[in-house]
């Protein structure tokens, strides 16, 4: 036992691990924060519940008008409710969930102010004999509001509950937003944990001259890096396990495909980002530059790799590039294992590519690595 505890690799792993777990902030950002994010986003996009759409209504009655009230206002007063300057109406539907439409009666100037602040998504110009809609067609929420309003004015509120037999709501596991989200968060956890935990630690210790002090001893350089990667990997396993445990207990998330394939891919993802992290931290001793380099690596991938929303919204020519980003490969493969029942045969290519990226980056990083 003494031989093991006196060994430099054991001591290095223990030191790196102690540094991680003795820092409460590290535990918060590594473990608690991803769970909070899964919980928040999972709740926000999964619960069917009610939808709320808010609009501004501007009444235009000129002297030549013979009627004293506007068209939509008359309809809302008959079918909905009015309190102060606010009209509301509820469109009921058991399968789609209810929609609450709220209209704030106001002036043009104020209506534009509310639109700019995002308080409303659409302005209704209401006249005694006509109604016009002012909105940005690129705004999906405004478009939905317009279509609902357009149908409402043509067919009345019953349209929303018509043809119910053709709607089959999917509540199967694997098709909910949270099923899309959890594998993505697990993939992102690997990237974030490696890039900050490995790269930043190396840059910080280089800047404090600790690396230089260590290589002035008979320490094996490879042991230092191996220990750093091992401690980080252990932490990543704990972080992923806790996030999965939460998702399993709270959202009923389950792995429909192969567990060995999932584990192999998890290891391959860790190898990929450990290698990349060594490469990007191989030179600089300035933590601020390091900060920039790490952000330049992780931010674009976080945006385009489809962690929170599908990357198929990006232009077609970008898709083949996005699909070969390490983070996308991990997230896509995780999703196919979690939700589509994929096995080892479906993801071995990704696992191989990720392992190769990690190995090549590691070797390259080690070749140009500056210890002082």
């Amino acid at each position, binding site marked *: 036992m*003494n031989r093991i505890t*006196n*060994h*430099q690799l*054991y*001591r*290095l792993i*223990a*030191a790196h691990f*102690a*540094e991680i777990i*003795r*820092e409460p902030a590290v535990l918060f950002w590594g473990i608690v924060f991803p769970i909070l994010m899964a919980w928040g986003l999972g709740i926000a996009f999964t619960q069917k519940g009610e939808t709320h759409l808010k609009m501004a209504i501007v009444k235009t009655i000129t002297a030549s008008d013979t009627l004293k009230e506007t068209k939509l206002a008359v309809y809302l007063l008959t079918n909905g409710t009015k309190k102060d300057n606010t009209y509301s109406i509820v469109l009921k539907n058991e399968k789609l969930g209810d929609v609450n439409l709220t209209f704030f009666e106001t002036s043009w100037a104020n209506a534009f102010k509310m639109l700019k602040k995002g308080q409303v998504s659409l302005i209704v110009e209401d006249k005694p004999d006509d109604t016009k809609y002012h909105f940005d067609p690129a705004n999906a929420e405004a478009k939905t509001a317009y279509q609902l309003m357009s149908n409402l004015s043509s067919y009345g509120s019953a349209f929303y509950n018509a043809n119910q037999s053709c709607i089959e709501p999917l509540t199967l596991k694997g098709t909910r937003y949270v099923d899309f989200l959890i594998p993505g968060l697990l993939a992102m956890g690997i990237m974030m944990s490696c890039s900050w935990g490995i790269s930043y630690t190396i840059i910080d*210790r280089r800047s*404090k*001259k*600790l690396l*230089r*002090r*260590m290589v*002035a*001893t*008979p*320490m094996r350089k490879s042991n230092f890096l191996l220990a750093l990667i091992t401690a980080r990997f252990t932490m990543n396993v704990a972080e992923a396990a806790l996030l999965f445990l939460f998702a399993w207990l709270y959202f009923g998330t389950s792995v429909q495909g192969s567990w060995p394939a999932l584990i192999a891919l998890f290891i391959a993802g860790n190898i990929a980002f450990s290698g990349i992290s060594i490469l990007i931290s191989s030179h600089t001793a300035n933590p601020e530059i390091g900060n920039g380099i790490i952000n330049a690596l992780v931010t674009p991938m976080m945006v385009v790799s489809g962690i929170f929303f599908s990357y198929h919204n990006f232009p077609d020519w970008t898709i083949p590039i996005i699909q070969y980003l390490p983070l996308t490969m991990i997230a896509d493969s995780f999703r196919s294992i979690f939700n589509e029942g994929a096995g080892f045969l479906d993801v071995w290519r990704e696992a191989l590519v990720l392992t190769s990226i990690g190995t090549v980056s590691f070797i390259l990083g080690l070749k140009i690595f500056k210890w*002082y």
Partner: protein
Amino acid sequence: MTELDYIVDVRNVKKSFKDVQAVKGVSLRIEQGEFLALLGPNGAGKTTLVEMIEGIQHPDEGEIFIEGKQWKNHQHELHQLIGLSLQETRFMDKLTAYETMRLFASFYKLDSRRVDEVFKLIGLEEKKKSYVNNLSGGQRQRLALGVAVLNKPKILLLDEPTTGLDPNARHEIWNILLDLKKEQNTSLLLTSHYMEEAEYLCDRIVIMDQGTILAGGTLEEILKIGGHRSLDELFITLTGRHIYE
């Protein structure tokens, strides 16, 4: 005295960085058990010279022997012979002093007995369980010194080991070093801004400026140059500057 009696033997070493010639042909010898101070203002070339002896920089010209061996072919053996303390090294904040020492001990395949001995030597036994970031400046320097002497080095290279410490903490470090000299016949190469450190500790003093050695010898010997009363006066005459500039 044969060449092998010198623990450090620097022969006509030169080193340039881009346009700056940092060390311009320096020769220096340190005997076993000898304490040598390297004094010089900032930019004198002290650190470059010490880094070449440490094996971190390679000379453009000239040779360096440590116990008759060169860095090129004897890296592993030379790491075992040398102990060093760098200016401003910061150990891992969240490790205890004891864990830090055990970590460095493991690089030399040493066990907890040697670690306990060193804690006694540096008088930091009551702080074993304190995190490094909770130690005072003086305690951190003693820890750095402890790490430097773990492997019972034949030569200690200390880069400004007492800079920023109060007089008490400085004296504590000096006493540890003198004990080491008495008990283990350790050699020391020390760079310093403090004249009294050189006077109190060292057998020989070497004054460097602009990459060359301006004077070297025992305190009495070098004071005879120009009949100066103090090292401060001599330093100003030789370099035209105060040492702390």
